[in-house]
């Protein structure tokens, strides 16, 4: 099986004044295409930082990330963005929908960015699939948290990504809604064969995944 994500000896630290805070140290792992991968760890252990580095949103101090065969270190910001648009989907703890766009427009956005003429049709299908057919023209502020998360999910899958990053996708939702969102996530993964990388505190969720990476203090716990 091929690896869709390869992380080697990743190191990241922040400087504040005189002090240097090493957030990630010597992180090496890889994710097989089509699998579900969970990253768990206590608060402040560096999960979000790791996710950001894997998706090319940030640069590491040293080490490398190769995503879908591309070495992120050799790409500039715009090339990373183009790569994300083609290969990567995102789901965030706080949804991150564009507040000025309707649900439909939010979902169409990644497709429109790549110039897909059928963007709206695909987006409508996806929204119907997540059960929001009636709410397509509503703005995020008119939707509940769970509904917003479902829109975010439809958006994440709209460009048929080969890899989907989710940072605590259920963190802001109650248990019921959370588990429904997760079911949806896993269904979409099963249907489209999308690789899932999920950051979570929820051990139940983590156990449903094929592999679990445990972080503590910026290092991998074996």
């Amino acid at each position, binding site marked *: 099986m091929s690896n869709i994500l390869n992380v080697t000896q990743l190191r990241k630290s922040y400087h504040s004044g005189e002090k240097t805070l090493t957030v990630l140290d010597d992180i090496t792992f890889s994710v097989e295409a089509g699998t579900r991968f969970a990253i768990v760890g206590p608060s402040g252990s560096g999960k979000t930082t790791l996710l950001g580095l894997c998706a090319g949103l940030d640069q590491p101090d040293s080490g490398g990330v190769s995503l879908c065969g*591309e*070495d992120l270190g050799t790409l500039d910001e*715009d090339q990373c963005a*183009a790569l994300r648009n083609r290969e990567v989907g995102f789901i965030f703890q*706080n949804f991150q929908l564009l507040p*000025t766009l309707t649900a439909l427009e939010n979902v169409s956005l*990644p497709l*429109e*960015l790549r110039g897909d003429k059928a963007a709206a049709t695909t987006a409508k299908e996806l929204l119907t699939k997540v059960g929001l057919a009636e709410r397509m023209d509503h*703005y995020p502020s008119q939707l509940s948290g769970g509904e917003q998360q479902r829109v975010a999910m439809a958006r994440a899958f709209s460009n048929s990504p080969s890899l989907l990053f989710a940072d605590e996708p259920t963190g802001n939702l109650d248990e019921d809604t959370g588990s429904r969102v997760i079911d949806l996530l896993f269904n979409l993964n099963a249907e489209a064969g999308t690789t899932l990388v999920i950051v979570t505190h929820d051990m139940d969720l983590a156990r449903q995944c094929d592999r679990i990476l445990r972080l503590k203090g910026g290092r991998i716990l074996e």
Partner: protein
Amino acid sequence: MGSRHSDQIPKNQAGLLWLLQMAWRDGRASLRRLLLFMSSIVLGIAALVAIQNFGMTLEENIAGQSRELMGADFLVDMESEPDEALRDTIALIPGTYLREVNFASMLSFPDREGTRLVRIRGVEPGFPFYGELTTRPEAAAGAFGKAPGALVDATVMTQYALRPGDSVTIGNLTLPIAASLVDAPGNTQVSTSVAPAIWIPYDQIAATGLIQVGSRVEYNYYFQVPEGTDLGAIYDRWDAVLDDANADMDLHTDTSDRLGRRYQNVGRFLKLVAFIALLLGCLGIASSVHIYMKEKRASIAILKCLGASRRQSLLIFLFQIAGIGLLGGIVGTGLGLVLQAVFPQLIGGLLPVELQWSTHWEPVALGLVLGVGMALLFGLLPLLGSWFVSPLAVLRVAERTPAMSNRITTAVLLLIFGVLWGVSVLLLERPLRALWFVLGLAAVFLVLALIAWGIMWGVRRYFPHGWGFEARQGLLNLFRPNNQTLVLILAIGIGTFLISTLYFTQDMLLARARMEDDRPAANLILLDVQAGQQESVAAQIRPTGMEVLENIPIVTMRLASIAGRTVEAIRADSTSTINQWILSHEFRVTYRDSLIPSEVLQEGEWASSYAGTGPVPVSLSDNVARDARVTIGDTLVFNVQGVLMDTYVASIRQVDWGRMQLNFSVVFPPGVLEDAPRFHVMTTYAPDTDSSARLQQALVRNFPNITVLDIRQILDVITDILDKIGWVIRFMAFFSILTGLIVLLGAVRTSKYQRIRESVLLRTLGAQGRQILRISAMEYFFLGAIGGLMGAVLALLATELLAYGVFEVPFTPSWVPFGVVFPVITLLVLGIGLANSRGVIKSPPLEVLRKEGV
């Protein structure tokens, strides 16, 4: 798995159309706010377009009606009666001509009170060739000159309750009034109110007996040539010839050019005032876009995370701002075109022509380009900030955008400066002056910004902890994050500054016109007193209790040679830099032994007497010395009515021509000109209008050749003109104030949600609606008061500087800016602020919390 080369990453495919669509989708949600940004530039653009288009319309009308303004294709004019040779020359010039003789005179009516300075025009029938002579009754215009009868200016007819058929006496001549003269070529309200015209037939002029030595008489030959004649060729052929005979040729286009230039100067000034209004609006845009883009950072991060490039993210918002600018340009231009129709109402009779409205493409283009250009220019810095927003911000809300590099900031500021300069050059047509203007403007902005900053610093440093809760909170609000205090104080300050400066300057100009010396200033000036009449005129004045204040002898002369070269030789020399007017000018020269208050010795030595032998030491005014290219010691030969007189330049004086005083460009020492044919100017002071009128009447009756200038009356005319111009300027300044208010409105709205949150918080903490309102009231009161006061004080300083440095007059400021402008502006700011705060207090907390959610 091998790594593909990075160049192979395909760029995303979203094109221009999508970017525009995104700009619209995103803008739609904050449309009201964006429209508010827009309106802050609308008024400035409207004002500029209005003036520009009005100016072009006026210019076009003046140029289009230039023949009607002159009443002829060209004219030949001279200051003394043409001799045989000159008449022969004139006869050779192509075309047909009509003659006119005109001079100022005093008019009185046998059975009516009062006298009036008028211009007597002896005109041959048939004039004007072009344009209309409008008379009441109408038929009189066509019949003029065929029978002895006068056309009397309509204002004079009204003033003395005259009717056609009454008679008018001019010197020795009494004529029936044929009609009242309503309009004639080239008449403006100003010219008619200073010296209204009386038209009499040309052949009756001699009968008045008013043309004597020293009388200032103009002789005009109005020409008509067939349509299509090359006037330039005629001018080239004849002008030099006429110059030699001390006559001058004026084409109808020259007149309109001169007129056009005069209005252009006023127009330029108004454009600057409008431009300042636009800049104020731009300042508002800069500050609104800054806050707007700050709020858009989260959205930009999401866009980048989903795969939008930096360029695309920038362009989406750039298009938005450009769109707003374009809309502002369109609305502003439309408004400007409507507005220009108001100007004639404001300046009324100051215009010499009837206006035919038309829309010119240049002002329209200017409006649209300025709309887009200024919005982008002033939004550029915050827009460029989007480039540096990291997509990482989607994971970390607090992710800070790295500060823009100093180099980019400097480059953008330089760009702004450059563009402002460019636009000013476009408006002023003088690069250097435009540079000074932009620098001066930058200085005022900087001073205001520094003061505003200083006040804020001072308030923070010495915070009045002893004040009540509400006042303290209100003051604190000025320092909240994202505050627009600086911009608001600037906007309010500049607006107040403009209006106050206008008031002060107007006061100062009027005060200067009225300025009185230590002695009681003369307010009646008697011109053309013959040498032999001095005693009897004085005898007429004294019994009324008035004094003859001055009795100034005047001798007319021309230059015959300058520094050893004859005037003819200089004329023939095409390389000579001596100004043409010097060569043919008839100088009115006086003689006295001392300087007068309006003069300052600049160079050389003042000659108070003449030794009796050798060249006469004379004194020149600096402008004459400059134009004649002479300095101390150069010789001048004057032709004093046939007698050549050798002189040399002994001193050069600086003369303040602006003072209400008789000033002379050439002054002789006593003991030279006493026997030359001369006339006198006598001045006196009449304590009130009644005594003035009585004296004028007596003088006119006994000495019909004497012209009396009534300074009181002239001042009234000047005041009237200044008032009218003042209105226009105030009208323009009003745009600045309005713009300031819109910027204020925009700023207040921008921070509305922030305020709502705080208000909700305060309410949960137990504050009452009334208290919150009072806090806001305090805040806006501080804003208005600080800005307004600063503007007024700065205006006071600026005018004081002007008064001291430029006009050299003591200046007593009027109370209007402090008593009216300042409180009104403070109240307006307060009103707008409070109206908005009511909305804040009324909005229910739940709605607030929802809108706060990302």
